[in-house]
């Protein structure tokens, strides 16, 4: 397993004038890109800038409409992921494709040719994983592994093909800061062997830290190629967004208001074998506060949202209180009527129905809270389309939602614009309590700053805001209080200005003996 350096001068991979059309829409428009041997190359861009389309073409998932891909100076046609692997391109996707019920070695063997024996795969995988500082037990079941460990399986799986170019799609979005540091060491080792890495990220600090060069995309075109170390985060962001990104002015209210949202010893068993159980979660959010819950993906954030929103109510009424009234056993509609608003993590098919127009998606969240305004005909429940459309227009204008046409299908909006609409839909009714899971997940920088400012402003106006997020930058921007969730347990909350990234990182790893002691003491 030794990497072969490409001939000097010509880059390992060159992309010339690559274009991908979907109908008349150019997802990638005349892209030029060079990746040299032994460099870590960043691909930057907002959501919808064409990063994934470009990468899918490089990995043979999509066929380019026109343009050329040159591998070591020769034009190649990459027809399938298999073909990409054969010429030496490996890829680690953002969303893993692993079978949870199988072991690590079995999962790896699935992607290899059928003839190789399982024990040989296990041996090779464990050798590689130690070589690259990615310790893995080949006989462990995937279901028992953390997200970081699962990512290692994907990386080892890619390394087994002895690739010269490894593509990583947003690899650190699921890692703790400490886990990310280890990944960076692995990347440095790969680089020292002469392998190249194409690193897709929107985290500018990371890119500056580990990448040798960066290519920035915007609206399907290359807007800049630079050495990220010579740039500032602000200048990189400008290349991505095309304008300066407004910085969020933090909440910083000093007056402590009433507790508007409270969870008391909230315990929820896991609904499925692979879900996380919530264990004795206690939290309080006061009027004027933004409590941010940090944590690595898959530690119970979704389950906590489900229990707090009432999508899955719990038995104990006092486990969740909204504005001082017990609501644990009540459904989401009742909790909305008590003054709470909710923004789930997944936009498509949870917070919004993509095939339905925006106005219908407004009714989705507010059919009961705004029953008097939106519905006519008493029990018949006739939807007053005209009224709903006016409200929908108001929300779009307030949140600066960019869309084609007056009332397009939710699915036709970009991720950021749809998220602005979904957040705006709740803000529009001035909820006393707002619970948001991953408010700016996969959202471009411009929209993210707008959404964060809106959350901060809502708290300033006297509401209680709970933000569940994996993005530490975001958390420090919006939070007045911070708590960390790990394996379904929630730490105490600390004032935001008392915490550092390192402390949060430790809490994320589940090291909070002190906290557990305090919880036990509080009983």
């Amino acid at each position, binding site marked *: 397993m030794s990497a072969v350096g490409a001939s000097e001068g010509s880059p390992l991979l060159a992309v010339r004038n690559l274009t991908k059309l979907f109908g008349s829409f150019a997802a990638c428009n005349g892209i030029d890109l060079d990746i040299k041997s032994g460099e870590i190359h960043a691909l930057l861009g907002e959501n919808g800038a064409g990063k994934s389309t470009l990468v899918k073409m490089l990995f043979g998932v999509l066929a380019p409409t026109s343009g050329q891909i040159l591998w070591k100076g020769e034009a190649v046609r990459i027809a399938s992921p*298999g073909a990409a692997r054969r010429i030496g391109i490996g890829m680690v996707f953002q969303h893993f494709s692993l079978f949870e019920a199988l072991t690590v070695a079995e999962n790896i063997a699935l992607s290899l040719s059928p003839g190789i024996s399982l024990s040989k795969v296990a041996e090779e995988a464990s050798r590689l994983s130690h070589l690259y500082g990615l310790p893995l037990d080949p006989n462990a079941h995937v279901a028992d592994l953390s997200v970081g460990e699962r990512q290692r399986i994907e990386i080892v799986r890619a390394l087994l093909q002895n690739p010269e170019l490894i593509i990583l799609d947003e690899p650190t979005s699921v890692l703790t800061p400490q886990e990310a540091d280890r990944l960076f060491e692995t990347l440095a080792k790969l680089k020292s062997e002469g392998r190249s890495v194409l690193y897709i990220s929107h985290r500018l600090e990371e890119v500056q830290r580990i990448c040798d060069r960066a290519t920035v995309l915007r609206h399907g075109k290359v807007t800049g190629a630079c050495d990220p170390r010579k740039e500032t985060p602000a200048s990189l962001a400008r290349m991505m967004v095309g304008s300066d990104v407004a910085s969020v002015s933090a909440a910083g209210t000093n007056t402590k208001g009433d507790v508007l949202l409270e969870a008391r010893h909230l315990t929820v068993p896991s609904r499925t074998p692979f879900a996380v159980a919530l264990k004795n979660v206690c939290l309080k959010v006061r009027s004027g506060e933004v409590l941010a819950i940090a944590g690595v993906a898959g530690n119970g954030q979704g389950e906590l949202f489900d229990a707090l929103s009432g999508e899955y109510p719990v038995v104990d009424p006092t486990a969740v209180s909204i504005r001082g009234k017990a609501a644990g056993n009540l459904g989401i509609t009742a909790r909305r009527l008590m003054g709470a608003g909710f923004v789930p993590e997944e936009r498509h098919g949870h917070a919004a129905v993509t095939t*339905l127009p925006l106005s219908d998606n407004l009714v989705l969240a507010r059919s009961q809270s705004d029953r008097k305004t939106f519905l006519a005909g008493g029990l018949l429940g006739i939807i007053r389309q005209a009224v709903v459309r006016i409200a929908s227009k108001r929300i779009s204008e307030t949140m600066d939602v960019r869309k084609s046409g007056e009332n397009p299908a939710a699915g036709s909006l970009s991720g950021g614009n749809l998220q602005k609409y979904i957040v705006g839909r709740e803000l529009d009714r001035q909820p006393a309590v707002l619970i948001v899971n991953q408010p700016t997940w996969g959202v471009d920088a411009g929209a993210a700053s707008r959404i964060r400012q809106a959350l901060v402003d809502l708290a300033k106006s006297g509401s209680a805001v709970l933000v569940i997020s994996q993005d530490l930058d975001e958390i420090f921007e919006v939070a007045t209080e911070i708590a960390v969730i790990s394996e379904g347990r929630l730490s105490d909350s600390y004032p935001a200005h008392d915490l550092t990234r390192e402390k949060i990182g430790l809490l994320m790893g589940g090291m909070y003996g002190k906290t557990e002691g305090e919880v036990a003491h509080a009983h």
Partner: protein
Amino acid sequence: MRIELEKRANPSTLYSIVSPFLALALTVVAGGIMFALLGKDPGAALYSFFIEPLLDVWSLHEIAIKAAPLILIGAGLSVCYRSNNWNIGAEGQFIAGAIAGSIVPVVFHEWHSSLVLPLMLIFGMIGGALYAAIPAFLKAHMNTNEILTSLMLVYIAQLFLDWLVRGPWRSPDAYNFPVTRDFAPEAILPELISSGRANLGFALAIVAAVGLWIMMRYTLKGFEITVLGQSERAGRFAGFSSKRMIWFSMLLSGGLAGLAGIAEVSGTIGKLQPVISPGYGFTAIIVAFLGRLNPLGIIAAGLFLALTYVGGEAVQLTLSVSDKVTRVFQGLLLFFVLSCDTLIQYKIRLVFARLGQSNEGGAH
């Protein structure tokens, strides 16, 4: 080599409107070929299948009679299918409704009152709804696949009806024929107009279809049905319960199928007999999809499918071909409707990959 369906980025709106008509045209062409293979003149055969029935008052009445159950059932099924509940057992609910509705005229045949008919219709609806409640309960509380349970219950209903008319409900005056006693005049659904046999069932069907159309288009209930059909998770977020929707949609479609059953028995047959339906409950599935799961479209589709029944009888008489021709036409039609819809959403791609030879065989 393998064939892949690749989702089209921008499916043509024009084609999705034209699709049912395209399917009709293809059905007619394929039917013409079938008649030619049978040694009949395709032109004449298609004429007597599709055109002749429209030129005659008697057969127009027959079309209305056959369209009524198709529209009633199809409209109910469209609500079910839109909410992502797959009731395939409307045929069984049709029979259950017919049996329940016949309790009054068969068991209490000595009671004469103007209340008999309304009671029969209500019992019919309840019977169909209760029969659909079985798969609804199994799906909502046992997580059972409603496609299988509702379909299997069809055979139970058919055999139960058979037993009933040969056993406890057999008429004492029918010389041992397996039928119930004839319904009294006040138990017969009246004719719509004086020129023929078409009865009030057709009016009921139109009212039900228009009512459901209004519900789907203008009300929160219709919105709830659409949302839960598209995404259960989004429905939960909206505060809608998918369990309650299983009950609602199954009881609604079952009730309408039951109403169709009692209307058919009361209006057209006048008694119960071992076989009361030429497969209306199954044909209504075609009607629902040909009508694009839109109750107004279903009125048109129901009339057209009724034409295939009447036309099938016509060619049987004039050209002496098998009555299975009707089934073939209905099958062709469903096939073409679904294929047209699929090809509008997806394009076919032939992939000439050397699977197995490559050492990446199972990689993706």
